[in-house]
């Protein structure tokens, strides 16, 4: 328990930044999904850091992290189903394939 709280927050911020960067830079949809998971885990780490810093009987921080884990699994299930649907149509999982409509 001798890791300072700020260090956990810095680590989480770095994870989040890597996730954002991966989301923006990478073209492979699977890798983009992994980047989103990194961002979610950054949020989890921050929740746990906050829960440790504030202490007390309130467990809302860890409980939020548990909810995030469950919902991340739900999102991954739907997301991978969509990736499979894309692969069936286009035979690729690169986001360059998503160009039929131009914003």
């Amino acid at each position: 328990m001798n890791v300072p709280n700020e260090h956990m927050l810095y680590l989480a911020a770095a994870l989040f930044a890597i996730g954002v960067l991966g989301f923006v830079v990478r073209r492979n949809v699977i890798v983009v999904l992994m980047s989103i998971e990194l961002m979610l885990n950054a949020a989890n780490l921050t929740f746990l850091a906050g829960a440790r810093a504030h202490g007390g009987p309130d467990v809302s921080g860890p409980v939020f992290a548990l909810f995030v884990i469950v919902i991340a699994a739900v999102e991954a299930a739907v997301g991978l189903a969509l990736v499979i649907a894309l692969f069936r149509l286009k035979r690729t999982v690169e986001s360059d394939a998503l160009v039929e409509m131009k914003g």
Partner: protein
Amino acid sequence: MIQSDLARVYDADTLWAVSPAIALALGVLVLLMVGVVTHARWARGAVVAGTLGLSAVLQVVVLGDPPGAVFDGTFMADHASGLWGLLFLCGTAVAWLYSLNYYGEDRPYKVEHDVMMLTTPIGMMLMAGAQDLLLFFVGLELLSVPLYALCAFRRNRTRSVEAGLKYFLLGAFGAAFYLYGAALIFSATGTLSLAVLKDFGSFSTLAMSGVALLMASVFFKISVFPFHLWVPDVYEGAPTPVTALMATGTKAAAFAFLLRVTFLLPESAAMTVATIAIVTMALGNLGALVQQDVKRMLAYSGVAHAGTVLLVVAAALGGDRQPHGALDAALYYMAAYVFTAAGAFGLLAMLEQGGDRFTHIDNLRGLARRRPYTAAALTLFMLSLGGIPLTGGFLGKYLVFYSAVRADMIGVAVIGVLLSVVALGYYLRVVVALYMQPEPASLAGVAVPARRTLLPASFATGACAALVLLLGVLPRWFLTQIGS
């Protein structure tokens, strides 16, 4: 948690307060069972209609005597969340009615479609009543995850899958921003409860950066600048009844929550929010002006409308001192928008005829001669979107701009009004095509769908049109209902 705590959290008042959502959840379970037992259309339809009706009745009864904060203060069942809930149910019902005959023969998983549509209003209700950052997140995902799947529901069509995947990737990205923002707020303050945050006093830098991330995520859901770029593609590619649900329900639910968390923003942010609103309106209108596809045009117009109603938030921050002034304006505006936009998207769905694309503006030319009622309803919706008097859209705009004027943002209100005039340019183009241009030769032989298959859609159109007119003609009655 000891037993007395449980009894305190789950008392009769609490269960009563969330009974509309419970009714929907039970309806979803029953629908899944019915789907296993029988494939009869009438059975599914009866379950969905019965669930929505039961939930609406419960919501009206709860609205008569709102219990207030329940579930240990995490859910607020007040007058506003009751009204929002009714609006969500209406929006879902309209979208569902339009979806009934939309997919034609290539609709492989009919039960799943209705199950997902019936799940979304539960999420919306949780979002509108959330007094806790965790509850809002659960509501957000209950709404978003079914919508990701619904967008890609016609999975043998590239556009549908593309829309679903784009919505999913950006939606999950936005949700991650929300989570990290909530985590930062929790780290800085040690609480997730909005009520506690309200009395917290000044926020540290850490908490303010959390608020910024959280707001970015909400702005993404209501599609305002600079988070609006996904809207045209997703709205165009998704099946049109799903677009109707997305355009109305998601936006209204995210706005209901935004009004609850406005206090997180400092008052000095009023001008920033007003600028974002104006830029959003300008970009939405400019984008819509150049579109030839009516569905895409309506998507850009939805961006412009999100900008307009965001002015309410700016006005609330800037000192609109009339109690509930901002909330009244936002509710009225969104009510008018939900019925207008759901009706307009729904009519496009009806015209698509077995799911083939029929949304180019040339395909609407001369429609008034062949289908006078459809053309009249579409005209009414276009006029309401443009804010012409005697329609609900006009009064919504009036209330929003009036709220901005009360907050001494006269310049902002003037620019907003001028931008709404620009918007008339593209709404009236549709009316011109309907009534004043000859029918294209390529459509001369296209058969009109049988009246029987149009029955649900016609019913939904009639209800939407009636409500849009009533909102425009009897504003006093609706305002008393909102204000009481």
